[in-house]
């Protein structure tokens, strides 16, 4: 572990170990990621262990008990590698080390060991498309045209090749080519000019990148989020995106993982329409997870329009992930709320509804955290998380959203949503004991979202807090893995504000015993109470048990099943065969978590 803290951090109370039984150890359950809840950690902003004003890996280790108590299954770490930090760490200058701000490789090993001991897995961002221009590979490559790394990057004598390839950062880059006077050639870069693309035509590059993966996997990392994955190869006359060669390389990586590191995963970041992104699942032989970008803005649209169609339309266009694969879903993350995957009309609507202040706009999206986006409406926030946790996909939470943290619109670019985690009402929100001026970003201090009002310590003491609600929801999701693996079927309902669906066990899951009773989810997207009549004839003879309280509801018959939904309310039911329910058992069905664990 790196430099010891100046002050000993007070230990946080830990819930009973039985409250959140760990997932099986890595390697035991190859489908763990389909049932898991992911938690995205911005290490720099999570907890500062050595009091230098910047969050670090030992700080994350110190907060693992909290994350275990919360009930997350897997951490996703943003880039922690050495980097000039000209692109938030996505410009890596050394693939086999840890940025000194965050600690050391040994610190990461400690994190992995301690996380696994708590049943928590850890994956990390890995940028394989490009490096920083300060990476030794590029420094060597640009020296001349004959050095050993000369063709590790994509060089050309002019800047005219591949005109069909779009410029991704069109607001700051004019071309995908940049001239290097030292070598006297142009190099290819799909993102910033300081991020030269690696040349995957060179087998040495592909081998080197796989060796980089082995390095971290040997340390115990449970997988990678592959950043900017569509751009690995170039071909004349194409856009240079999603090429067959790229898929072939991912399949090769997957074979390495399956053969040498079973149970480890690949998560693809490919911002596109589901039907295109689904290619990265391959035939179950490429990525385990792919982010589902278009669902997120449509969740926000649906609750403002008070109708289900924005959600059901995109789900209807979403191919089912092959067995052994899964969509990854989210409400917010470390970037802006991207609106690339909506129509111009929908984007205008979302800007009007969620970014009334021009400062809220960032690039092609909205730079706000979840709670301020929803004007801190507790019921609405709960509804959106209920949808995230029950719709198909593995949900990814963003640090701080479990306590409804706010943002700082006056910080540049995407720093507005990367302010320090608010642990306590004390100095610097309990994030760091460094001088305030030394902090990487100022913590929130406003009266509504500031750390004095919104912090982990206060919410842990209050059983009715949002944090406790979230913990309870994660426990329910864990108890019903069908949320992760079950089939999804939308139910007809004449009321357009009601989104109802059933998650039921797939045929193959019924065979291996991991299948379970179907779960019925009913969600009211309206601020008003709404009636719903659901046609549940197929499940006639079952009794619905509400999942949070295990309250038995009237049995399902052949007639429409009437339900009254509270404003922004949701109900989750397990549909239990009546023959399996005995009156004497009803009284034994208690809550999901024992009261003493609250």
């Amino acid at each position, binding site marked *: 572990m790196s430099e010891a803290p100046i002050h000993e951090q007070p230990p946080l109370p830990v819930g009973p170990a039985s409250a959140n039984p760990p997932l099986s150890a890595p390697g035991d359950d190859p489908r763990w990621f389909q049932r898991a809840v992911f938690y995205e950690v911005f290490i720099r902003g999570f907890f500062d262990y050595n009091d230098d004003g910047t969050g670090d890996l030992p700080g994350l280790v110190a907060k693992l008990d909290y994350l275990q108590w919360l009930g997350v299954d897997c951490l996703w770490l943003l880039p922690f590698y050495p980097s000039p930090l000209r692109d938030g760490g996505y410009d890596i200058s050394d693939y086999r080390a840890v940025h000194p701000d965050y600690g050391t490789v040994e610190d990461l090993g400690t994190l992995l060991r301690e996380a696994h001991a708590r049943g928590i897995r850890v994956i990390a961002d890995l940028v394989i498309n490009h490096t920083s221009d300060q990476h030794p590979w590029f420094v060597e490559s640009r020296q001349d045209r004959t050095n050993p790394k000369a063709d590790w990057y994509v060089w050309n004598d002019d800047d005219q090749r591949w005109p069909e390839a779009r410029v991704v950062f069109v607001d700051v880059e004019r071309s995908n080519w940049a001239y290097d006077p030292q070598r006297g050639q142009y190099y290819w870069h799909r993102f910033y000019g300081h991020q030269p693309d690696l040349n995957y035509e060179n087998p040495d590059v592909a081998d080197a990148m796989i060796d980089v993966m082995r390095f971290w996997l040997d340390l115990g990392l449970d997988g990678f989020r592959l950043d900017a994955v569509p751009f690995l190869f170039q071909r004349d006359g194409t856009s240079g995106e999603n090429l067959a060669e790229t898929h072939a390389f991912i399949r090769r990586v997957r074979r390495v993982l399956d053969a040498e590191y079973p149970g480890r995963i690949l998560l693809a970041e490919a911002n596109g329409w589901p039907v295109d992104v689904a290619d990265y699942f391959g035939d179950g032989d490429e990525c385990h997870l792919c982010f589902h970008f278009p669902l997120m803005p449509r969740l926000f649209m649906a609750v403002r329009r008070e109708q289900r169609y924005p959600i059901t339309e995109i789900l209807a266009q979403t191919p089912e992930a092959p067995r052994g694969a899964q969509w990854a879903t989210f409400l917010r993350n470390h970037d802006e709320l991207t609106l690339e995957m909506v129509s111009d009309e929908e984007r205008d609507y979302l800007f009007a509804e969620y970014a009334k202040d021009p400062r809220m706009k960032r690039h092609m999206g909205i730079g706000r955290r979840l709670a301020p986006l929803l004007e801190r409406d507790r019921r609405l926030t709960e509804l959106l998380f209920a949808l995230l946790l029950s719709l198909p996909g593995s949900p990814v939470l963003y640090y701080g959203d479990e306590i409804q943290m706010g943002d700082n619109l006056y910080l540049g670019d995407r720093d507005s949503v990367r302010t320090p985690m608010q642990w306590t009402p004390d100095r610097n929100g309990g994030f760091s004991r460094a001088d305030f001026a030394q902090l990487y970003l100022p913590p929130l201090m406003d009266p509504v979202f500031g750390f004095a009002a919104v912090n982990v310590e206060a919410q842990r003491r209050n059983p009715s807090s949002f944090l406790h609600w979230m913990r309870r929801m994660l426990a329910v999701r864990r108890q019903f893995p069908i949320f992760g693996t079950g089939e999804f079927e939308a139910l007809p309902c004449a009321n357009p504000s009601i989104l109802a669906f059933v998650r039921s066990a797939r045929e193959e899951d019924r065979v291996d015993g991991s299948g379970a009773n179907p779960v019925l989810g009913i969600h009211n997207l*309206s601020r*008003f109470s709404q009636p719903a009549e659901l046609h549940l*004839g197929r499940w006639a003879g079952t009794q619905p048990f509400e999942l949070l309280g295990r309250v038995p509801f009237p049995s399902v018959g052949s007639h429409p099943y009437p339900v009254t939904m509270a404003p922004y309310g949701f109900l989750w039911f397990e549909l239990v065969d009546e023959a399996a329910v005995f009156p004497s058992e009803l009284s034994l069905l208690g809550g999901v978590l024992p009261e003493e664990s609250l």
Partner: protein
Amino acid sequence: MSTPDELVTTDAITPGNVESITTLIGAYVDRQGRWNDDGGDGDGAAGSTGPVSLRSASVVRHGRPGLLSVVAGVGGNDIHVVVGLRAPGEEVVFLADADESPLGIFEDEEGLALAYDATADAEFMVLLLDAVTGEQADPDRVRRVAVTRDAVALSFDDRLAFTVFQLLPEGGGPNPGLELFLALDRVGFNHVLAPITRWRIDSTDLGIVQEYQVGAAGGWVLALTSLRDLYASGGAPEQAGGDFAAEARHLGTMTARMHLGLDEAFGRKAGDVSAWVDAVESSVQGADPGLLVDEGVATMLSDLRASGSRCAAIRTHGDFHLGRVARTDQGWFVVDFSPGGVPAFGAGAVSEDGVAYRSPLADVADMLWSFHHVANVAVTERDPSGRLGLESLAQAWEVRNRRAFLAGYLHTPGIGGLVPPVRDTVRKLASAFELERSATKLAAEP
């Protein structure tokens, strides 16, 4: 686009059964109370409707359970009833909201049976679906989705929709709404539920089986959702979360495509704006002559007459409003084509061989009036006393969504050939049709 199969059932009932079938139909009609001479609206008020005159009866399925398809004249209407026959003691799987008692006793060479309204029984309907289409379905997943004066619609497995026509055209023959729908489908208009099988005897349509859109919700309900949000939040409708304008714009585009499809399917006639204005004036004169005194109305009608504009006349929907359309995961659909192109109001029609051709703007006017109507119904529901002053919000909502609907309609490529070339004339003509609709509708209300 698809071509539905056709099934014609021709088995005759023995003459000896005529009386008992007539009795069953009489019992059914008395129970439903939907086909009185006064055109009852199907509110369920039972009552005698006069003598039943059996027109035809066919065996759709022999044995027990068995099915008969019966057409009878009742109170000036021709109605169609599907009778289900069950051996005494057999289990009955009644659908929700259905009358569960038998219509009576029936006997034929296969023995004694209890007779039921088959559209109220899941198992009968599964058998009927099988007989008509060859499709199998789960009785537990049959449900009634609509019961109107004209028809009963049921869904099967959330996969198929079966509309059984009950009120038939006088003297039999094709169902006019079905003709419109199938013609639109043939020309590739894809905002309708795709047809699977057309059920008919001789030339009389008895039903239609279509693909079912599981996530559909009615246009009226969706508009109310938007209005509730606006009335609760106040402010400008464009700033309300439940803003309906995007939906209205897409609905306008879908409406234009429907008209282009009808034009392609049935062709067009030359329309005369002046003649239509005369018809509007005459119609309003009969319903609410005070409206014509208004200076603005008089000027509008005068301008239209003076415009000398030409406008195409096409087959139209005839009664196009928010209740006839539904929002689905694939966008807006037209889900109800009754009254089959026969306009509910008189103006704008060019009749040829008994078929009404009229300005497509008459349908547009119907929908615009529907926006007005739903906004005001929502006000009345929320604030019957008028103390909250929601009328201004209703008006703003209406204005915004009328504009959006018209923008979607008029910006659809090709629609310019069907409406007058001058936008001002388009607006005024639509307003004239809407004036007629409003006056006639209000005059018809008690």
